[in-house]
């Protein structure tokens, strides 16, 4: 029973990381119809920025590492929107393709600059240790990921409901032309959405490294995660933040439960990943627009 609690918390933590990635993807798609393949490299860049601060500016502490990861993600994402997405308005497929090219180019650049081997992020002692709950030792990293997921969910909900940009973004997702007709600059909201999504992605990349990958970063880790984030976004319904949150928890739990209880026998080691894909197939067949997606 106590093992069950431990792996449940681990699944929720994984779900929290998925949510951080999926929320940005979903926001961007909901407002702009852009499926952002470069989100994977935003994750990776966040992790590398965290690594750089931990290695070269250790006096900033772990808070500095976290801020650097989020800031790097936000800056690269905002630059992407202004330089690459903006010139291609009205050409959704080209927008998807250009993000694919960016991912290719930046991953290549990271491999050239840092090598394709993993680098190790220096983490504080409290993060590497465990907390005992009901006799079961839970890694503190799980709580960090969970806390970050909840904090971002809360912040996003506040941002979308209470701020002017949030309202423009929600209105733009409903009907972009109407918002424009009311004299509001939707273009700036596009940049804001990319920056917010990029910040969440940078944070997620760092958390994935320190919580789930033994504090290692490598140039392709973001692209591996991105596929699961896509699955989360599609299951949750493209454009729905709450849908993404539900689907992220669902996918995280399924992956962890199946992987744990199926064991690692021959042909079973990847069963957790496979079952997530099967859930996606079933959801799409039964409900093509996802759990909470808007009608097509």
């Amino acid at each position, binding site marked *: 029973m106590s093992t069950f609690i431990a792996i449940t918390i681990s699944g929720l933590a994984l779900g929290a990381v998925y949510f951080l990635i999926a929320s940005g993807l979903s926001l961007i*798609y909901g407002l702009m*119809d852009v*499926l952002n393949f470069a989100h994977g490299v935003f994750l990776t860049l966040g992790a590398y920025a965290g690594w750089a601060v931990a290695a070269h500016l250790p006096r900033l502490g772990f808070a500095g590492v976290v801020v650097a990861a989020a800031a790097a993600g936000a800056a690269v994402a905002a630059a992407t929107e202004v330089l*690459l997405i903006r*010139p*291609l308005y009205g*050409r*959704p*497929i*080209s927008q*998807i*393709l*250009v993000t*694919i*090219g*960016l*991912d*290719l*180019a*930046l*991953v*290549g*650049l990271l*491999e*050239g*600059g840092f090598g394709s081997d993993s680098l190790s992020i220096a983490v504080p002692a409290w993060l590497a240790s465990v907390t005992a709950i009901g006799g079961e030792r839970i890694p503190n990293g799980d709580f960090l990921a969970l806390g970050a997921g909840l904090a971002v969910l809360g912040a996003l909900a506040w941002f979308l409901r209470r701020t002017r940009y949030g309202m423009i973004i929600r209105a733009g997702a409903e009907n972009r032309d109407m918002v424009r007709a009311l004299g509001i600059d939707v273009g700036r909201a596009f940049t804001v959405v990319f920056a917010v999504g990029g910040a969440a992605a940078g944070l997620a990349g760092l958390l994935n490294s320190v919580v789930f990958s033994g504090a290692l970063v490598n140039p392709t880790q973001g*692209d591996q995660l991105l*596929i699961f984030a*896509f*699955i989360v976004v*599609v299951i949750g319904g*493209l454009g729905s933040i709450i849908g993404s949150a539900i689907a992220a928890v669902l996918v995280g739990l399924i992956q962890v439960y199946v992987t744990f209880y199926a064991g690692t026998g*021959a*042909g*079973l*080691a*990847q069963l957790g*990943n*496979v079952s997530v*894909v*099967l859930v*996606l*197939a079933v959801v*799409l*067949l039964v409900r*093509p*627009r996802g759990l909470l997606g808007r009608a*097509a």
Partner: protein
Amino acid sequence: MTTPQDAMTGVLGRLTQLTQRTQSGRAAARPRTRTAAAAAVVAVFALIPLASLVVPWVLPGPVDVLNSAGTLDVLGLCFVFAGVALGYDVLFGFTGMLSFGQVLYFAIGAYGLDITLSVWNWPLLPAIVVTLAAGLVMALLLGAISLRGTGIAFAMVTLAFAQVGYYLIEDNPHNLTGGDTGLVMSAARLPAQLVGVASTRNLYWLALAFLTVVYAVVWLVTGSSTGRVWLAIRESERRAEVLGFRPLPFKLASFTLSSLITTAGGMVYLLLVGTASPDAVASTTVTISILVMVVLGGAGTRWGAVAGAMVYVYLQQYLLKIAAEPSFGALPAVVRVPLSQPSFLLGAIFILFILFAPGGIAGLASRVAARVTVTRSRRPPADPEGELVE
């Protein structure tokens, strides 16, 4: 909405008018010139293994001789991916469907042939037939499921199925796939021509033959009435439906042909390279490369897809050779590091094409041609903007 045969032929006239503007006018007007030109290009490439010319600078192999093994290997790989890119172009360029799971059929081809030959020790012919049949069955089955979604949903489901394939291969069930390290092909059941010293040029010709056959098939099919319906679906699925065509069978046909070509490409790849590994034949990065090749060349054009793939694979190998040159190491790091990464350069070139030349290489070429011969009206290839995202 049912479509009786007579209604279909009646509507075809209007549909032909509808899609004529997207067809290359020249292809219909002067098919004989086109055939002759294509045959000449194939003949020139077929003669390369016999030509021991010294060509400085541009060859990707370690030796500057045109028919050296290093150069023939790279060109063979170019042909394989050109055929595979043509297959993807059928789906993406000619029918307007964005799939992210193309690599699954490449993996079925490579691993199917590898397992039947090397693990089960079958003779070559049954191994090929069974592998193709496996590709066909999977394409029909998974196509029928994933075509329930359109646009992004279709892309995501195809991606998901391809990921399952990747995980299964990584998992190495019953020691069939060799897991992470891959499965080396056993040469025991191969004909003597494909093994040993002389095999390099034979494999080169095999790859060239594969590309030629694929090109001929794609040429025939995209020029047929089915091909015109594909174009109509690409332009507007709803309009095609209003004209009386049920899109689903046509889309499934496009998906299946595309997948089958890719399966065949996977088999030729295995014969050429001699080993199948998950990262080289089953990972999503391969799908992305194929997509980049097609768009770089010009989606919706046949020779564009071929040119895109040739340029992509050639550059990938050639840039690695350049980066290994001793004089290259003397460059300052700011210049050397980006230039030593083929994927950075290819990604950057791809971005520039998307921004400034969305018709790809074929679009650039027809722009130049239009400037040279102002009198002949030629259309640039279609921008691959269908109704994918509404």
